[in-house]
């Protein structure tokens, strides 16, 4: 996902730079080293088996899954689909993007053991990160020497503690490596985005905070789609922000001299296309939100720019369309929407994992919906027959039925329509759904099947897993309050004038209409930072709507379906005036508060948890309650500071440090204590955690 990003700093604007400056590289390396430190090589969610099998088969040169390398039990697995008697994986975007890592691991494991290769790479990553931090702090020699010695020490400890990881695991390891890099790219993009608007400090805190203080760290090593789409959102936000003014002209092969902004926009559309390859619905959502935000705020909509956008989008969508055509025969039908494989179909998986094909049987049973609660991703009525629907539809129109009727029918049976109708019909439950998804989880009686996770109450809400959002809520509350107060003051004027005959009302209405009429112009002329705020909000609203009918749901842990909005939320938090001023002025208080709270937190856990002896669900809910309290306090402090009741920036810095540390404690304990599912790539971290776990 690490496409080149533009350097629009004050220096040489013709340069194309990935990291922007030394701080960017430090954020990237630091994020990767942090996320990698808790990496468990293994499967956490069962439908990852299918994607990993897809990757192994793609690496062998075919899209069809002819060999099952990974499986929990013999037979089917969620995420495996069948078309014309051949098996396919759910997600080829992820599989193809992980190919470079797969081939690299395959080549390197011919000379080195996989477990030592991972531990060695991580140790060298620590060396590089330390050196780069030294460069940033202008103490390169000290940091490089210390980091190198640390790296040797960590590697030695890892070698002595390592347990064997078989080379058959390189498929899943490659997917995990891709996901880890995606999280580091997310941190880098947030650094560049926030430093662009508010300086290096705010950027660096936002970038590092993306890993330390959000659930992205937990999902970094879980190769679901979420970390990838989160990275896409972060990079889109940055490219959106960097392309809001015309900027310098750059020369591009084949196209000649073009505005840099146009190139970035074309790249953004290409990225949206790639996101669709990973998950069609989320790609569509990102396309919709980006088109609206981009066209409403673009510095130019010249023919040339539109052609560039069209080319970018086409290039980005090409792999998605090609995969769809090869798998389902229809360019618009991704493998995910084809029929789920069940063992009773005409394909069998042999004991050795070899897939055996029989003669395709006719009159297959219709499989409706999918496993894992994602029924909304197939059609409402007769989902699973989608394999033939394209052909049937053309047949019907040829029979003489009106084209409009066929179109209506098509829309009605489409999953998008079914989805929209679900959103409408389920609004009656909205308060309870939204409360459990975003505010407080607890035991959610409707919608969550706890039986799949041994009845453990482990599904947290967004505020419980990302207490930083308190900063956003507080900023908005204070903003609304300030607006109301100034609005109330200004309205007192006209109401006194109104005594001279009804013109006040007319003036107000005219004012409202005028405001609406002037809105597009005002949006276009707004500050790029405000325009980016708008895009971030659109992405959040889009994801909240897309997944509204599905949430709350089991196996979400930190509402992982909306994980891609985390970068947007981190950006919006960093943009609050009270927050960014604090980061710029009281960085030291923030860091001290974080470190002290983390230390105290580890101590409290070490002392209290053996006494409490909580079960997994109880421990998760305890974290949830603590985080929720922190979130509320954070909101209150930000509100008070923004409203001018608190002058000092230290309270807000302190509570941000606490929120970050509380989240770090949660996501690290989730990976090292509550959810063990694989072999730790860095066993020395595992050993240290055992000593501290209590």
């Amino acid at each position: 996902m690490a496409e080149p990003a533009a350097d629009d700093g004050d220096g040489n604007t013709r340069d194309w730079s990935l990291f922007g400056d030394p701080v960017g590289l430090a954020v990237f390396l630091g994020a990767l080293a942090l996320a990698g430190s808790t990496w468990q090589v293994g499967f956490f969610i069962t439908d990852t088996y299918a994607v990993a099998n897809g990757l192994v088969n793609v690496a062998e040169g075919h899209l069809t899954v002819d060999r099952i390398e990974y499986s929990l039990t013999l037979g089917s697995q969620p995420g495996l689909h069948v078309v014309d008697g051949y098996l396919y994986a759910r997600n080829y975007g992820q599989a193809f993007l992980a190919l470079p890592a797969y081939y690299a691991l395959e080549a390197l494991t011919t000379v080195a053991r996989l477990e030592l290769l991972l531990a060695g790479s991580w140790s060298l990553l620590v060396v590089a990160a330390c050196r780069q931090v030294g460069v940033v702090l202008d103490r390169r020699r000290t940091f490089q020497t210390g980091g190198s010695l640390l790296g040797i020490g960590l590697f030695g400890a890892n070698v002595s503690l390592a347990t064997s990881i078989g080379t058959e695991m390189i498929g899943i390891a490659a997917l995990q490596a891709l996901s880890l890099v995606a999280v580091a790219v997310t941190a880098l993009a947030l650094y560049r985005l926030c430093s662009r608007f508010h300086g290096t400090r705010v950027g660096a805190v936002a970038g590092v905070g993306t890993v330390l203080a959000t659930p992205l760290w937990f999902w970094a090593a879980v190769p679901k789609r979420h970390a990838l789409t989160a990275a896409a959102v972060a990079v889109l936000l940055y490219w959106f922000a960097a392309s809001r003014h015309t900027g310098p002209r750059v020369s591009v092969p084949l196209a000649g001299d073009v505005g840099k902004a146009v190139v970035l926009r074309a790249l953004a559309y290409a990225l949206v296309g790639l996101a669709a390859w990973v998950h069609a619905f989320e790609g569509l959502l990102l396309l919709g939100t980006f088109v609206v935000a981009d066209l409403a705020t673009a510095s130019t909509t010249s023919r040339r720019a539109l052609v560039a956008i069209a080319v970018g989008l086409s290039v980005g969508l090409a792999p998605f369309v090609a995969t769809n055509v090869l798998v389902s025969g229809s360019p618009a039908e991704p493998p995910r929407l084809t029929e789920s494989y069940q063992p009773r179909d005409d394909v069998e998986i042999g004991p050795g994992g070899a897939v055996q094909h029989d003669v395709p049987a006719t009159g297959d049973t219709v499989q409706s919906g999918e496993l894992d609660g994602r029924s909304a991703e197939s059609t409402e009525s007769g989902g699973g027959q989608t394999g033939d629907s394209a052909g049937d539809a053309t047949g019907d129109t040829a029979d003489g039925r009106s084209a409009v009727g066929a179109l209506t029918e098509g829309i009605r049976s489409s999953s998008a329509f079914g989805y929209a109708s679900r959103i409408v019909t389920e609004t009656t439950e909205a308060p309870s759904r939204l409360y459990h998804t975003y505010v407080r989880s607890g035991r959610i009686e409707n919608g969550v099947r706890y039986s799949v996770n041994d009845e453990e109450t482990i599904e947290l809400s967004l505020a419980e897993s990302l207490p930083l959002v308190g900063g956003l809520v507080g900023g908005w509350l204070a903003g609304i309050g300030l607006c109301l107060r100034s609005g109330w003051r200004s309205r007192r004027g006209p109401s006194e004038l109104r005594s001279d005959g009804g013109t006040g009302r007319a003036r107000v209405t005219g004012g409202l209409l005028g405001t609406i009429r002037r809105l597009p112009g005002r949006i276009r002329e707004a500050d790029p930072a405000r325009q980016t705020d708008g895009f971030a909000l659109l992405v959040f609203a889009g994801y909240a709507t897309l997944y509204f009918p599905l949430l709350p749901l089991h196996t979400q842990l930190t509402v992982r379906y909306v994980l891609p909005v985390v970068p947007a939320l981190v950006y919006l938090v960093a943009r609050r005036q009270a927050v960014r001023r604090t980061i710029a002025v009281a960085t030291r208080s923030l860091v001290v508060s974080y470190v002290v709270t983390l230390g105290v937190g580890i101590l409290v856990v070490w002392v209290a948890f053996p006494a409490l002896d909580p079960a997994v669900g109880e421990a998760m809910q305890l974290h949830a309650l603590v985080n929720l309290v922190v979130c509320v306090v954070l909101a209150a402090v930000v509100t008070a500071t923004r409203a001018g009741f608190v002058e000092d920036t230290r309270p807000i810095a302190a509570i941000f440090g606490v929120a970050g540390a509380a989240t770090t404690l949660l996501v690290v304990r989730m990976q090292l204590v509550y959810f063990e599912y694989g072999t730790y790539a860095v066993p020395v971290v595992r050993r240290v955690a055992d000593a501290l776990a209590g």
Partner: protein
Amino acid sequence: MEASRAVTVLSVVVVLGTLVVTGPLVGGPGGATATNELGEGTATVERVGLTDSPSFSPGRFGTGVVYLRIPDAALEFASTSGRSRLVYRVAVPALGFDRVGTAAVDSGTIHRQVGMGDRAFSPDTLDRDRYRVNVTVRVQSFAVDRTVFRRNLTVEVGDG
């Protein structure tokens, strides 16, 4: 060469060197990675018991479930040789619950505790006042498989 660079080069050389030397091409020292495999060991148990009695109690912190709290099994060995393992099994047949916790026993081990996580139940699945809980502890290896502890306990569902 500057000292800091020299140390970095050294670290890279150490890592790459170790990777190649222990790798499949050179096939160097084979014992670099630990194994958790079962051996031919055996263990004579001196004393065995549960650290507490199993009980049902309501989940805390808003979990909204009832937990079967499962104590650890504590063992003291008179003698151990080779590598064997402890298999601690707790079952509640009426609830369809059956879970195993294991722990390795190496030669020279004197004390060992083996446990497992508490098990959550949705309150409406617990329709009786008391349940029969079967507990066993076995010592197992390729050489032996011996049950050293067996209890059938009756556990009441507290009204919390």
